[in-house]
């Protein structure tokens, strides 16, 4: 058997739920695997439903020809975003590096198989989008029979180019970081800069479309996606392949994907060992001199340990601290440009003023800060180190109190700074500002305790790669998705209520509700934590 296939097969088998179900007698583990499979099936169903609804919208307004463009764009964006966060951890700096590299595999084979593993694992998500949109397109556009197989075949190639671009950027970041002593810090800073640059690019592109006087209608979205296809050629190759049955475009999409794959891994393979050696090595200065040591309480020391755990991992830091950074950036932008300008820029002239938006300030800041709570993943991140805290003369509730304290240390200062900046920009009265700050802090407490409940309830200590815990775990998904959607809904609700009721009253009501909920979740976290003592 080809060595690439042998390695790929082992990589897939090593994270396969089916394999766990087949060979594991532990009923709890089996139940968890089944539960995770059901949860994933729900998410697939949700995504497909969303895509079908989108097609119905297109079909209803006679814009169904835009469906292939939207499908390609959606898959490309998701492929790019998901890959950039996974590159460090999957492609570089992975746990079983020593074992794999000591086997007779070429460096480029290991790198390429790791990439293909990422591709195959995420393929069902892209195919579910594609299948749903193909169904919608088929229903409204009545295309020829040839479109169906072409669409399906090309769907396998669509995510390749964005994933390869993201991997190559991850490679450049890793390559640069490898030249520094503090590889971890440099890698984190470069990744954050890169993600922020991508976000800005999105607004620059939107601005281009806005300058073209595109109207805020579904039609404008289709024009926008059409314009995007002109900027990102694989989208138009896909679209032309299925709408005009253009063989040239088909060959372009397949040819460029395959050639890019070969080129990327030829380049990556050349310095793969060097980069991984640097990323997996930890420089030792051996200059430490014994000095008087500081003492901390047990809770404080757990919080400090969490800080060191976070700063020691690029994946952890980028995912947990990105929201905080974005909140401050939004705060600074509002302060510099003015809240009104930001509102009109984001909402494209929708009839919402800074005054109307005031009561939603804490929720807007919380949208970024509460996006991810360190408490949702930190219990599982203990992984093989779980024995350390379990063997200490500490109650588990103290451990979780320490973890929650760390999340409060991480979120509250950013919440206060961002809220203050937005309030100053919106010229919010002092009392309202104080209430917004209090609401913001209460929201941080809620995020902390909610995350902790999810983290303990869906504890997963056995993992191959920390990305599995930080980005893909049940705990993080169950915390993040409802939290994000509810925050968006609450922002709209608060703006609406603000037009009818006094802002202070609204804030007080939300402080009370959030505070009670945070308290209940805190009690639950402590209860679930204490159950681990037995």
């Amino acid at each position, binding site marked *: 058997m080809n060595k690439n296939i042998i390695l790929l*097969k082992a990589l897939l088998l090593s994270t396969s739920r089916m394999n766990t179900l087949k060979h594991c007698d532990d009923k709890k583990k089996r139940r968890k695997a089944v539960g995770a499979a059901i949860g994933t099936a729900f998410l697939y169903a949700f995504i497909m439903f969303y895509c079908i609804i989108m097609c119905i919208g297109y079909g209803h307004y006679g814009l169904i020809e835009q469906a292939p463009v939207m499908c390609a764009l959606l898959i490309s964006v998701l492929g790019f975003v998901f890959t950039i966060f996974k590159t460090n951890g999957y492609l570089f700096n992975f*746990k*079983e590096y*020593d*074992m794999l590299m000591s086997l007779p595999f070429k460096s480029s084979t290991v790198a390429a198989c790791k990439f293909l593993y990422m591709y195959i694992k995420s393929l069902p998500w892209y195919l579910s989008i594609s299948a749903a949109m193909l169904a919608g397109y088929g229903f409204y556009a009545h295309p020829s029979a040839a479109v169906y197989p072409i669409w399906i075949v090309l769907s396998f190639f669509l995510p390749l180019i964005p994933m390869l671009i993201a991997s190559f950027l991850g490679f450049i970041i890793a390559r640069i970081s490898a*030249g520094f002593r503090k590889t971890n810090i440099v890698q984190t800073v470069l990744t954050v800069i890169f993600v922020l640059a991508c976000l800005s690019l999105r607004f620059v592109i939107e601005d281009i479309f806005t300058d073209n006087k595109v109207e805020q209608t579904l039609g404008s979205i289709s024009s926008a996606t059409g314009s995007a296809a002109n900027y990102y050629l694989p989208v138009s190759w896909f679209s032309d392949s299925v709408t005009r049955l253009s063989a040239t475009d088909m060959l372009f999409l397949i040819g460029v994907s395959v050639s890019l794959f070969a080129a990327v891994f030829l380049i990556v393979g050349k310095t793969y060992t060097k980069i991984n050696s640097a990323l997996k090595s930890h420089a*030792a200065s*051996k200059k430490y001199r014994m000095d008087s040591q500081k003492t901390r309480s047990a809770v404080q020391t757990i919080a400090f340990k969490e800080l060191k755990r976070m700063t020691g991992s690029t994946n952890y830091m980028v995912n947990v601290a990105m929201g905080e950074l974005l909140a401050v950036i939004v705060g600074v932008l509002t302060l510099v440009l003015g809240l009104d300008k930001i509102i009109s820029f984001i909402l494209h002239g929708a009839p919402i003023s800074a005054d109307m938006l005031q009561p939603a300030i804490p929720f807007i800041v919380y949208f970024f800060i509460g996006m991810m709570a360190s408490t949702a993943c930190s219990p599982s991140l203990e992984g093989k180190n779980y024995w350390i805290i379990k063997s200490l003369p500490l109650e588990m509730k103290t451990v979780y109190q320490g973890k929650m304290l760390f999340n409060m240390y991480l979120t509250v200062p950013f919440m206060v700074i961002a809220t203050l900046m937005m309030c100053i920009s919106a010229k919010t009265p002092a009392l309202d500002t104080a209430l917004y700050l209090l609401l913001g802090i209460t929201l941080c407490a809620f995020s902390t305790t909610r995350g902790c409940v999810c983290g303990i309830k869906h504890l997963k200590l056995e993992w*191959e790669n920390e990305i599995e815990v930080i980005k893909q775990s049940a705990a993080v998904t169950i915390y993040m998705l409802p939290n994000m959607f509810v925050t968006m809904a609450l922002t709209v609700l608060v703006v609406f209520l603000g037009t009818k009721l006094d802002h202070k009253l609204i804030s007080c009501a939300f402080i009370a509700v959030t505070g009670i909920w945070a308290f209940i979740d805190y009690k639950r976290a402590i209860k679930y934590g204490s159950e681990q003592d037995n």
Partner: protein
Amino acid sequence: MSNKAMLEIKHYSKSYSGSKKAADDVSLTVESGDIYGFIGHNGAGKSTTIRAVVGVLDFTEGEIFIDGHSVKNEPLECKRVTAYIPDNPDLYENLTGIQYLNFIADVFGISAAERDKSIKQYAAAFEITDALGDLISSYSHGMKQKVAIISALIHKPKLLVLDEPFVGLDPKASFTLKEIMRKMCAEGSAVFFSTHVLDVAEKLCNKIAIIKHGRIIASGSMEELTGGHSLEETFLEADYE
């Protein structure tokens, strides 16, 4: 007549950006039939050297040859004849023991009959046959170590490189491993391993190198090195100097 050099390390140095050299001008030769012990304090540079030998760690200074092939320029040829057992084997936790062994056997292109024979033989020797159908995640450290050892042996390597191989092994498994090492060397292979257990090194090795602060401070045959003293005394004396 001198034996064939299975491993030649020539003036190998490794430093991490901005820090002291982890390995500094290391040179040694392991010939076929040798059981070569590599001893030194924690952080002396043993693992850094071993990881470079097996092609896991890159290096810019010096050269390393395995069976005449350069680790830098012909890594695949080197890896085909080498087996490496790290001190803390990170195996695929969600594979069963037998799935993992089959994966390694597939990589080395071992025939079904041959792998059946080897796996049966070594699994029985390490008393792990019953557990081979279980997920590796359910194994103890020692059991993982045993699977890593079996995976290293099934392709009959010419050079076996081990980093602290006896840590976590039960007494019987340690004995079995020592017997296997002796047998391999009697058949013309070579073993290069690091250890802190000086008694084991003294009884098992015919050659020793002592590394301190990344530099080889003493090396040679056991007799030359110890001159009738115990290895422990020799090590402490060399270390003191």
